[in-house]
């Protein structure tokens, strides 16, 4: 496995299998009364968050703590560029305190990638702008694998604000590595620029027609992944009203009925109930949204373990 986890590009299908194997063991630990493992005892991890986050930061924090690492949360929002400090100076300062791993979120695409070039310690990308969120994609895939078995040949529909989604950008890569077929659905204004050549090269399908996709126009759908749509996008003219968005692209009660029973429903959270996902769908028996959250801790434990414990320990 590579030193850093900046993008799904950094892991092979074999790496993902190894991570999932470890994650399954970690998942069992979550159910124990005493949850701590000694694997990272004496190691220090910093969660450096330049952008607000509740769930991802807590998930990494719990993951680190259950592996007995010392975990420090540092919110750097508004503390670097606004004070005139360069990103390089900020991360060099923080890591000079003597830490073993950096978990980093930043509102700018590529930030983790840049930081990794300046540091000797492993860097884990916890979300960089609208670029990637690799641990989210790994936990999504892990959740799907647990419910569907192998993803080879399975058809996953990803629906929502693709332009601004790092979850989509990581998932498109991880699902491809696991052999799944993907169709992404969005109104034209929320399709990423240049998606035509990109999708042709990366091998995913695109559609503006959610009803057609759910009806099987592109083959039966085995899982749906809804993406958050930020209401502020309306001011950018991406779509006229929330109600129009829901009618076109929401997982409404009516569309829920179009899914085969047992079709997993995923959402990375936080949800806008009533906008991209109806309460009926969010709370449906086939909704795996809370499973994703618990899988998130297990998968992040696996990532921390593989990147920080050292190769010998992992063997």
């Amino acid at each position, binding site marked *: 496995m590579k030193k850093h986890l900046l993008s799904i590009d950094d892991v092979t299908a074999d790496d993902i299998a190894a991570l999932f194997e470890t994650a399954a063991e970690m998942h069992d630990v979550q159910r124990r009364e005493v949850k701590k493992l000694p694997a990272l005892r004496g190691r220090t991890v910093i969660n450096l968050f330049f952008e607000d986050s509740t769930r991802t930061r807590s998930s990494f924090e719990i993951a680190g703590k259950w592996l007995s690492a010392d975990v420090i949360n540092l919110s750097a929002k508004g503390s670097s*560029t606004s004070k005139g400090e*360069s*990103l*390089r*100076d900020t991360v060099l300062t923080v890591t000079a305190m003597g830490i073993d791993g950096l978990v980093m979120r*930043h*509102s*700018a*695409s*590529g*930030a983790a*990638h*840049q930081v990794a070039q300046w540091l000797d310690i492993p860097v884990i990308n916890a979300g*960089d*702008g*609208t*670029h*990637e969120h690799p641990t989210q994609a790994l936990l999504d895939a892990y959740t799907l694998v647990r419910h569907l078995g192998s993803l080879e040949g399975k058809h996953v529909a990803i629906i929502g604000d693709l*332009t601004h989604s*790092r979850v989509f*950008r990581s998932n498109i890569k991880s699902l491809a590595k696991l052999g799944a077929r993907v169709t992404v659905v969005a109104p034209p204004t929320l399709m*990423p*620029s*240049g*998606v*035509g*050549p*990109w999708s042709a*090269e990366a091998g995913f399908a695109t559609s503006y027609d959610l009803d057609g996709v759910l009806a099987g126009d592109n083959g039966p759908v085995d899982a749906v992944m809804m993406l958050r749509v930020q209401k502020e996008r309306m001011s950018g003219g991406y779509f006229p009203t929330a109600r129009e968005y829901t009618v076109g692209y929401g997982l409404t009660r009516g569309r829920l009925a179009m899914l085969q029973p047992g079709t997993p429903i995923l959402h990375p959270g936080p949800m806008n109930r009533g906008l991209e996902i109806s309460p009926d769908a969010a709370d449906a028996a086939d909704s795996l949204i809370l499973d994703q959250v618990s899988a998130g801790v297990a998968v992040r434990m696996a990532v921390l373990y593989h990147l920080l414990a050292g190769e010998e320990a992992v063997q």
Partner: protein
Amino acid sequence: MTSLLIKGASLLGTTTADVLVEDGVIRFVGRASGDEGIETPDTTVDADGLVLLPGLVDLHTHLREPGREDAETVRTGSAAAAAGGYTSVLAMANTNPVTDTAEAAERVYDLGRAAGLVDVQPVGAVTKGLEGHELAELGLMARSRAQVRVFSDDGKCVGDARVMRRALEYVKAFGGVISQHSQDPSLAPHASCCHEGPISGELGLPGWPGVAEEVIVARDVMLARHTGSRVHVAHVSTAGSVEVVRWAKSQAEKDGHWQVTAEVTPHHLLLTTDLLRGYDPTFKVNPPLRPQEDVEALRTALADGTIDAVATDHAPHARHDKEHAFVDAAFGMLGLETALSVVATVMGERMDWSRIAEVMSVNPARIAGLDAHGRAIAVGEPANLALIDPSASYVVDRDASLSLSRNNPWHGRTVTGQVVGTWLRGQRTFGS
């Protein structure tokens, strides 16, 4: 009296001749037989195998003084320019304070004359503070000692069509030209930092679509025609803009009462948007690096004369201003020292040395109204000259730069065609 003899240079890559310079003026061009009254020149340069061009003229340089003397000064920028074969550069107005008054323009002009390495010609702002609302004191800058003729809000677009119209009209009184940074601010707002296309989509970077340039170029050429004025399109970066300029030139030629000219940067002639995959802010520039199709269109347009000039958009930045996350890092890259080498390397098969001299010296001097530059290498002309070794290949080393900054996108690249000497009015400003 001081004298200089440049022996055996190939003038513009065509005829081989000796050039005698006395007191900054060319006194003799030809094969010296000994009867020309050349007793013993103070200096003799053996230029066998070298190409002599008129000193280069850069329509688009950022010298950062006043305001950011940590990134570049008029003196260091002038030294970098001389090393690139330039004898005159136009210093953009987006300094701090902005060059939007006669006093500010004269200050830059004087700093340039004091440095004495190239003729620094200030560009005046079109609008006060580059804010796009009220015209700056265009007439006073034109009447000042600096005799400003080129006006630009470069870095920002004059987005308001009414303001642009008035500026174009107003500068007619003194033969001025508006150099426009074409970027529709609503289609490509400030955060836009990557050509909008498959790569911006994949990298999740805010896209800067080519159409944001093209709509402004199209609007401005129509305004220039309507007002009977002169517009210059700075750093053209897309095939669509080239088409618009090509059409506009054909119209202007028929109409006869207005003019459009255009420049391209060396980086837009070679570097492409693929370089952004590593998120290295060295390659962050405005307008952004475009795909190969645009690069090809720009090369063709430069070769066929649709684009009049190569201009560097030399934009030095302190290291810490580039060590931010990509979207937060400063826009711009160095260009003065490498421009001729890049153009010779990229365009060498399609343009001979006299064409290169046209786009890097003659045309820019004409656009900027600089009478003493871009002249023929002939008796009676000022000795503003650049000597090139056309076969020398070298690897660009950012640490060897005379600029104060190191944001050099050419670092590590091999280029062919090296400046070995520069003279400003007969005084050697680069080379030994």
